[in-house]
């Protein structure tokens, strides 16, 4: 079984949960002996782990024929981990004249690999390149991760006639608290209409896909995310907490979707009663300034700390120094970070409106808007040692059993089903 996957992020250079999930899922699927995965991303950095799959950088796939010298191509592409042979193979499959497009000396389009302001243009470019890839590669099924790659998936499906499977990591309803961007919605809806099957990361997202995007329930299946076991060097990170106070942490993008203001309000309530507690808001986002102002107006700035964006190991350093992890997301398709916190032995409080609440039992669940309940749970975990200990040990046990391998098997069963239905 060969799968052609379209994605936007791949570790170690990631911007959000999408990259982590893509990595975990492909790694989990690679445990199946007959599974071959080709993963396309806009811009690889060369340090991606290619031991279990093949990565294609879309910025190295030519769409305009250029007369390039083998050695030159070799020297250019080796640093990003691509073979020159592949370049020439792609060059043989250019399907239209894109010379009016802005391309570099190899005939490739440059990608930022991020979420820039001209995102729509990048998405379009990505799907143009996907046309070349789809004509070159051999595969049985197309698997597109998130809306950015849906157009590429449709394109590949049209070119090859292979079935398309969408993986919905989030919908615009989650990102915008209901006020969807019509352009994004159109892309999402178009992708779903063309898909042969849709996978969602939670039952919550599945409902959204069925209710808001009018999809046939039989076509939509939930494949819950999982977590990658922590490596020994991460487990060995010491608790660097320099204060004796208890630390309660919010970790994630500071955006509307994540509900940071509920965290601040609850913090203010806890601080009214308990003095020996500090709050950390780790991450960055468009609501950060607003949050800093809110913290100041609640007069709790001395106990409330903003860390800015956290990357790689820093995330685990913050988690290890925490006593409670809080994710008050208004709408979270899945939310891997509480699982990571639980791996580090940190009790988690999550909103009932997050997808991971569906599979976690040893985590405290509250409604995101219920500030009283949120404050109460925070206070209880830092005040009653038994609760902390219980959630710590049982939570770790639970989360250690949520494996990508199982998620990968579920995806595989869906592949098999989709292919069987075709015949």
């Amino acid at each position, binding site marked *: 079984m060969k799968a052609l996957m379209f994605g936007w992020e791949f570790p170690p250079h990631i911007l959000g949960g999408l990259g982590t999930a893509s990595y975990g899922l492909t790694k989990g699927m690679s445990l199946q002996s007959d599974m071959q995965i080709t993963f396309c991303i806009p811009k690889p950095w060369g340090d991606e782990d290619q031991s279990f799959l093949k990565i294609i950088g879309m910025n190295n796939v030519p769409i305009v024929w250029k007369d390039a010298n083998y050695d030159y191509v070799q020297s250019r592409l080796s640093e990003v981990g691509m073979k020159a042979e592949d370049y020439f193979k792609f060059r043989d499959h250019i399907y239209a004249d894109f010379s009016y497009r802005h391309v570099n000396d190899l005939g490739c389009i440059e990608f930022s690999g991020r979420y820039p302001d001209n995102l729509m243009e990048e998405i379009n470019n990505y799907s143009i390149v996907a046309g070349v890839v789809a004509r070159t590669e051999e595969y049985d099924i197309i698997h597109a991760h998130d809306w950015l790659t849906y157009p590429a998936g449709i394109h590949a499906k049209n070119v090859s006639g292979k079935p398309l499977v969408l993986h919905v990591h989030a919908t615009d309803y989650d990102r915008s608290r209901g006020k969807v961007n019509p352009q994004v919605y159109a892309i999402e809806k178009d992708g779903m209409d063309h898909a042969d099957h849709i996978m969602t990361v939670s039952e919550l997202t599945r409902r959204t896909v069925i209710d808001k995007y009018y999809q046939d329930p039989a076509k939509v299946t939930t494949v819950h995310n999982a977590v990658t076991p922590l490596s020994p060097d991460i487990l060995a990170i010491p608790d660097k907490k320099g204060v004796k106070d208890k630390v309660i942490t919010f970790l994630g993008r500071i955006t509307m979707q994540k509900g940071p203001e509920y965290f601040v309000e609850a913090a203010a*309530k*806890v601080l*009214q*009663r308990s003095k020996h507690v500090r709050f950390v808001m780790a991450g960055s986002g468009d609501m950060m300034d607003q949050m800093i102002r809110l913290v100041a107006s609640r007069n709790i700035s001395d106990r409330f700390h903003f860390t800015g964006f956290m990357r790689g190991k820093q995330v685990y350093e913050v988690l290890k120094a925490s006593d409670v992890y809080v994710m008050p997301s208004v709408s979270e398709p899945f939310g891997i970070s509480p699982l990571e916190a639980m791996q580090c032995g940190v009790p988690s409080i999550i909103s009932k409106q997050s997808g991971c609440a569906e599979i976690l*039992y*040893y985590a*405290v*669940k509250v409604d995101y808007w219920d500030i*009283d*309940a949120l*404050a*109460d*749970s925070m*206070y*209880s975990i830092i*005040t*009653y*040692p*038994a*609760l902390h*200990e*219980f*959630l710590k040990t*049982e939570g770790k046990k639970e989360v250690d059993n949520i494996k990508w391998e199982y998620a990968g098997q579920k995806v595989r069963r869906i592949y098999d089903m989709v292919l069987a239905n075709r015949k």
Partner: protein
Amino acid sequence: MKTICFYFQIHQPFRLKRYRFFDIGNDHYYYDDFQNEEIIHRIAEQSYLPANRMILEMIKNSGGKFKVAYSISGVALEQMEIYTPEVIDSFKELAASGNVEFLAETYAHSLSSLGDPDEFKHQVKKQEEKIKTLFGVKPKVFRNTELIYSDEISELVYEMGYHGMLTEGAKHILGWKSPNYMYSSCVEPKLSLLLKNDLFSEDLSDRFSDYSWNEYPLTADKFISWIASTPESEQIINLFMNYEVFGTLHSASTGIFDFFKALPRFAAEKNIGFSLPSEIFTLMKPVDMISVPYPMSWVDEERDTSSWLGNILQQEAFRKICEMGERVRMCEPRRIRQDWYYLQSSDHFYYMNTKHPGKDNFSPYDNPYEAFINYMNVLADFSLRVNAQFPENLEDEELNPLITQIKNQGEEIENLQKELDKYKRKAEKLEKTTKAEPSVKPKAVKSEEAKPVKAPAKKSSK
């Protein structure tokens, strides 16, 4: 002749309202009145009242041959007094028939037998008083909360003067033995035990309305014939269950009431009688002893106490109240005493269990953590109130002698006062006599008395 011993448990806890940590120290009322009232009303309508009517009718129709035993927890009785006094009245009516026995238990349906022996005895006393005042009888037979039993508990029960106790007939304890005999405790051989017949009891309590059961539908005819077909020497069939079997666990439409009404007729045909536990204890002798080193109960497949004290949340909460017990019992205010009972109900711990993820466990909470958080917040406020009664930094061991000292001092002062009065009266008498017949003697006595008092005072001033 075989005999069936029916026993029903009746209990309703005072469920707690949502109590946030910022209420600690501010709000001292802990109960969800609306919910408690709604539930007891509903269950009284569905179960208690129709079942009581039915049992009374059965007693009358059988000419006094039909008999049942109840244990109604003190907190349930309190709720009935507040919300559904008609249920109390109907129990009084049943009590008057003479064919009903009330058993002793812990007042709060608490787990105190597992962690606080003093509290346990105290609550049993309190429960005895409650039954006595309401129904005019003193319980003669004991049964513990949810049939919890162990060798240690049997000692406590025997110490309180009971010679009979009901408990579970757990398979891991009985092994090949049959529950249909009377047993005794291995540590207190004079304490006889009646063990629940799991199979027959659960045919009624669990399986009666189960469509997928291969014996469905169960008829009175069939049920009695099963009982009759037990070996000849097995004389006692103990059917112990929750009273909510009638109407709530199996709704009236399943035919549970009619099934029950038909039992005495078929039992009479097969020459099977009905007995009260106290009658069995006086008539029969134990055949063997059983040893129960670890506590057992009638709950879940394991038949142990893990439903209440299985995880560390439950253990922590229970440890907290056990630690408090001694201090609370020294408190005088009635509201503290009352809250103390209500907070000890085993239900609060049951709501915290994590044995059956996703099942509702009759819990008013969404999940076990909420149950724990809420309970601990309430307990935090309660312990503030208790500590406000006494200086907090005093250890219980120090406090106890101090309180007894204060008590003793009070008594001492009283005694001294009495003595003083006595002497005053004597003095008055003497004065009267001296007036009539002046003499030197009394004066001398007075000065002698005064001297020893003055002397030490002088010493101390030096």
